[in-house]
């Protein structure tokens, strides 16, 4: 029975009056993740925007037990929690690693890969705002081609995004999924499903960032929707190797598979102010090719 806004629990584990920017998609994503886990979790968080959300000692803005850990170590910290709980015979608590793209794709990739290879029993969620946003937007492995950032200030990023979900799929995990803060019910369902699966589970959540991407903070949801409608973000899940499109990506596929042109996504964000026509065309080709692949892989169409 799928949930909707009416049936979804009203209990909150994120407390109002926290330090996130207005219109923060990560806050929305975290809110629904914790609902899906009913707060029965121990969260570990590296240096990231989530750390800011959590607040400053001695007050925290979340109602779940949490362990903050240095930037590179999220996967290892989660492993430690799982190992400790197992050694103590404590059951029924989900260990949740909640990290940004910096702590997942870049500095944190080693410890995540190690933990995944060891198949430790936790959920790893990467909320991806496509840059080191906590420190004011410096480029990360997940910053898209052509995006301006603090460390790509004039030319924009010259490299493609690292496909972290594909990397995690290659670890042979029982569950791997992509989500978007703009589709909270899809996110909720995926976290609920992940909760029931044993082993290392990886979810990647696209979380638009108003101050980092330079768009009005009222448009956060719209931005995330546009990313999916243009095919820049594809919502899917891979459960024991079975690939399924979900939510808006599934609907798009069923309605003929036509994507909106990527151009409209780029023109609505200030970070793409220096993107070239060549780069836009390249990206359109890349998106089309990837979408074709997804349509081909999908087992539920």
């Amino acid at each position, binding site marked *: 029975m799928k949930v909707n806004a009416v049936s979804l629990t009203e209990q909150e584990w994120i407390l109002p009056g926290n330090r996130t920017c207005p219109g923060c998609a990560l806050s929305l994503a975290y809110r629904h993740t914790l609902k899906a886990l009913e707060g029965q979790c121990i969260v570990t968080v590296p240096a990231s925007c989530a750390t800011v959300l959590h607040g400053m000692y001695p007050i925290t803005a979340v109602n779940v037990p949490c362990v903050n850990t240095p930037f590179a170590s999220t996967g290892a910290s989660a492993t430690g929690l799982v190992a400790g709980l197992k050694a103590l015979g404590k059951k029924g608590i989900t260990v949740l690693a909640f990290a940004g793209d910096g702590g997942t794709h870049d500095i944190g990739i080693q410890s995540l890969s190690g933990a995944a290879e060891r198949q430790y029993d936790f959920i790893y969620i990467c909320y991806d705002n496509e840059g080191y946003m906590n420190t004011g937007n410096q480029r990360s492995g997940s910053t898209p081609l052509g995006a301006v950032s603090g460390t790509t200030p004039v030319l924009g990023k010259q490299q493609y995004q690292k496909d972290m979900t594909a990397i995690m799929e290659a670890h042979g995990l029982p569950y791997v999924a992509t989500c978007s803060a703009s589709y909270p019910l899809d996110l909720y369902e995926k976290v609920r499903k992940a909760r029931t699966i044993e082993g290392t589970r990886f979810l990647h959540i696209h979380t638009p960032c108003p101050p980092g991407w330079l768009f009005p903070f009222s448009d*956060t949801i719209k931005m995330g929707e546009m990313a999916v409608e243009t095919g820049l973000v594809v919502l899917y899940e891979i459960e024991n190797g079975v690939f399924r499109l979900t939510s808006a990506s599934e609907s798009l596929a069923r309605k003929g598979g036509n994507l909106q042109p990527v151009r409209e996504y780029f023109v609505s964000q200030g970070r793409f102010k220096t993107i070239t026509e060549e780069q836009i065309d390249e990206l359109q080709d890349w998106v089309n090719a990837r979408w074709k692949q997804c349509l081909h892989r999908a087992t539920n169409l």
Partner: protein
Amino acid sequence: MGTRDCGHICDESHPGIGEAGKTGEWRILVPRIDADKCTASRLNKPTCYLCWLYCPEAVITKGIPPTINLEYCKGDGICAQVCPVQAIVMEQEDKSAA
């Protein structure tokens, strides 16, 4: 009066609302729900609640109509954007009335 009395030997934080203070003060625009347009309100039953679903701050409650905690609402305007019947409007706020 020193800090030793708090009894902490490490950084141990406890949950609290308003960790960043009264974030309602961050607002430039304030949301106003028009009960005549709001679907829950018109049908007098729990329904829709997309504003509640999409609020990143968890300051909306599922009332008929939904209510917004203005002490902490940051005025991002997402609720106004996602409302399918445009029942929420972002207005200039008269802060002197607070």
